[in-house]
C-alpha cells in the first residue's frame, strides 16, 4: 500500500507578548525588543499540519478530512483563535514564542486518533515560519 502525506492549513488570529519572568525588565526589552510591548500585539497565524500513512484502498485517503477539521475546530481554533496566547494555560510557564506554540500544536495533533502526525509548521507572518517534527526524523511531508 502506498504511503502518502496529507497537509491541511488552518488560519487563526491571536495576540501575544514575549516576556520572561526570569529576566529583568531591561533584559526583557533587550531580548524581545518591540515584541515585549506590555500591551501585546498580534498575528494572523497559519498552522500547517501534516499526517503520513498508508492510503486506504477503499477511501483513497490518509485520513478523513471531516474528522481532522472537526478535531482542529475543537482542539485548535476554539482554544486559540481570537485569544491572547499569554492568558492560556499552554503559555503559563513558557514564553508565547511561535517555537513554543509550534511544539504545543504538535502535542495537540499528536493525539489525533486516526493518522500519524508527521510535522507541524506555523507561519507567524509571511516572513517567519517554524517547524517541528518528532526527532526531526524525516524531511518528508
Amino acid at each position: 500500500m502506498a504511503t502518502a502525506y496529507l497537509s491541511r492549513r488552518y488560519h487563526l488570529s491571536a495576540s501575544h507578548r514575549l516576556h520572561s519572568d526570569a529576566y529583568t525588565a531591561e533584559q526583557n526589552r533587550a531580548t524581545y525588543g518591540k515584541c515585549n510591548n506590555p500591551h501585546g500585539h498580534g498575528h494572523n497565524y497559519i498552522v500547517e499540519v501534516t499526517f503520513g500513512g498508508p492510503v486506504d484502498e477503499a477511501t483513497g485517503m490518509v485520513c478523513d478530512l471531516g474528522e481532522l477539521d472537526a478535531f482542529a475546530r475543537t482542539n485548535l481554533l476554539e482554544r486559540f483563535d481570537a485569544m491572547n496566547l499569554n492568558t492560556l494555560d499552554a503559555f503559563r510557564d513558557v514564553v508565547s514564542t511561535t517555537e513554543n506554540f509550534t511544539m504545543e500544536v504538535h502535542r495537540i495533533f499528536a493525539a489525533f486518533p486516526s493518522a500519524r502526525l508527521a510535522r507541524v509548521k506555523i507561519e507567524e507572518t509571511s516572513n517567519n515560519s517554524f517547524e517541528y517534527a518528532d526527532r526531526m526524523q524525516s524531511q518528508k511531508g
Partner: protein
Amino acid sequence: MILLTRKAEFSSAHFYWNDSWSKEENERVFGKCANRNGHGHNYTLEVTVAGEVDPVSGFVVDLKQLKDILEREVVSVYDHRHLNLEVPEFATRVPTTENIAIAIWERLDGKIPNAKLHRVRVYEMPDLFADYYGER
C-alpha cells in the same frame, strides 16, 4: 545533489465514490464529495526532481523539457477533464488528492532524463495538499 521544482496547473472535475459500497455508505463516508454530478478544483502540481548539475549546461534538467513532460503526461490528460469518467486510473481508484499525487508519480516515474523523481505535491486548494515520495 540539487532539488528542482516545477509547477503546473490543471482544472478538473471529480467526485468520491466506491462502487463496492451502497449509496448510503458512500454518502456517509464522503459527504458532499459523493454527489455523482461532480464538482471541481483548480489543482496546482509541484514536481520536484533530484539530480546532479551538468558541468557544461549548469542544469539538473532542462526546464523546458520538464515543462513539456508535465504537459504531455499530466496536464493534457487531466486539464478540463472529469477525472472519474475520462482518466483511466480513476476508473478504479477514488480521485482523492492523495491518489492524484500517487497517479501523477506513476505517470512521471522514469520519464525524466538525467534526474530522479523526488516528490509529487498536489494542491487541491491552497489549504489542502498531498505529497507522495514513491513510498510503497
